[in-house]
């Protein structure tokens, strides 16, 4: 619409210029320029009276806050449980809590990778900066985590822990600019469900995993392009 308005005004300018060139009589000149101005006004009016996406009416639902649904952030079930590889001497098998072993073992504050361990956790890939295990795991409460100031934080609140270092991501997350979500954008109509940090990032190796492209369009006549993939 704006395009038309500018076209019309351009046409008016050109017409006016032509009038100046062509008309010798002052009165006719004035008449013509008058019609010109009318045309501009009209086009502006029509442009604004038809659909105008630039200036929509004031938001209404912002005021209707009362029935707002929640933004539900998924949380871990609780502390992790370790699946036993085989039955223990007492013949028990299944899952056990971290504290099962760690309550009777002295913490080594220097450990930075599983390579240094000989009893358990072998093969655990760790690729999360230069952190030590006890930077995040709580030496006093094996079924909880610890913040940098030494205070205890539950596994369910793992995001608090992550946010200590990843404040930028946490801020983005708060504003929907980091992390996946489902449900409703309009909280007056329904809730929104969001992932938490460790849904997507393995805390021991937080880089987002590689994926394999599973779905590609099959266009007519672009088969050749598919075969040699060397599109510079």
């Amino acid at each position: 619409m704006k395009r038309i308005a500018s076209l019309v005004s351009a046409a008016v300018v050109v017409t006016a210029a032509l009038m100046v060139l062509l008309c010798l009589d002052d009165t006719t000149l004035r008449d013509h320029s008058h019609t010109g101005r009318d045309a501009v006004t009209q086009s502006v009016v029509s442009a604004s009276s038809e659909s105008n996406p630039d200036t929509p009416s004031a938001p209404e639902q912002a005021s209707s806050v009362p029935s707002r649904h929640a933004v539900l952030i998924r949380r871990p079930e609780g502390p992790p449980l370790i699946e036993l590889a085989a039955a223990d001497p007492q013949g028990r098998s299944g899952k056990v809590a971290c504290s099962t072993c760690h309550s009777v073992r002295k913490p080594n504050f220097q450990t930075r990778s599983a390579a240094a361990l000989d009893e358990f956790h072998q093969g655990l890939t760790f690729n999360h900066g230069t952190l030590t295990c006890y930077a995040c795991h709580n030496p006093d409460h094996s079924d909880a985590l610890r913040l940098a100031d030494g205070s205890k934080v539950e596994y369910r609140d793992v995001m608090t822990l992550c946010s200590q270092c990843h404040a930028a991501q946490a801020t983005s997350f708060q504003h929907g600019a980091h992390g996946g979500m489902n449900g409703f954008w309009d909280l007056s109509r329904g809730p929104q469900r969001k992932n938490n940090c460790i849904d997507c990032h393995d805390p021991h190796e937080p880089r987002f995993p590689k994926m394999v492209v599973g779905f590609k369009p099959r266009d007519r006549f672009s088969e050749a392009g598919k075969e040699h993939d060397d599109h510079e």
Partner: protein
Amino acid sequence: MTTTNDSSPTGDGSQVDGSQGDRSLPVLQHSSRRTAVKGAFATLGAAAFVAAVSPLRQAAKQTTAAEFMQTHYKRLTDEDKRQVIERLEAEVKQEHGVDVDIADDRPIPGTKFVYAINLSVCNGNGKCVEACHKENNHDRATNQSYIRVLEMPKGTMDMEHGNTTYSGVVPKDDKFYLPVQCQQCDEPPCVDVCPVKATWKEEDGIVVVDYNWCIGCRYCEAACPYHARRFNWKQAEVPADEINPDQSYLSNRLRPVGVVEKCTYCLHRTRRGKLPACLEACPTGARVFGNILDPDSNIRWILENKRVYILKEELGTKPAFFYYFD
């Protein structure tokens, strides 16, 4: 002179015509014979004409009178719309044996939809492409979708260096990924060029197509700088059990052949408050959607706090679609 000159167009008639072709005033007898020849020619021609257009009869069967006479969406009364939708639902039931629910979702007052994609995060896995394909009842054989993803070398924004046919493991270390779909422009060139107003921008910013009004000239496809529009070169084929029954008239209902379609920001979802299908499918959380008129919305925060890139901004199309970076 032969007497069987009315039998074939090129055979015997030739001698007659050849012998007297230049005589300006043929005798009456020949004139009447000539009339007979002309009559035979005309009959032959008419028969050939009927034979030539016969495939059209089949095509005509697919178009009901009600569909042919249906007027422009904006001229339909509520009662008209009810009848049209009833007819469309019945047609799907008849053809595919599926009960679908075609709604007529209208814009929510005070909403203006805006989309943003985090290019620092997108890894080009194509889940959004697939989700769009399923959500919008696209043709299965061609893997049609409203989204195309370009694999771009780092260090450029020039799509000339991009590639849409990448495959395998993503993300590649030296690449970033640029998903492109309809930008729901505020100055949409596609809407300007449509000769019959079959496509227009609604109050919430979504550019829609009335599939029952489009004449299929594809001028909009030529005008769109984002390759956002698709034409139904053939009838899309979707297995009955895969048809998404949650439909809307201006959105993902099964489209007729020979018309143009496009991304509608899933208006059959978003106008009911839900997030678009491509966003929900994104495993990286790169996609953000919301109402820019709401000052507390995610999208508003991104535009105010992040570095934003607008695709082909120099064309003046004013997209309601932004790319941002962490």
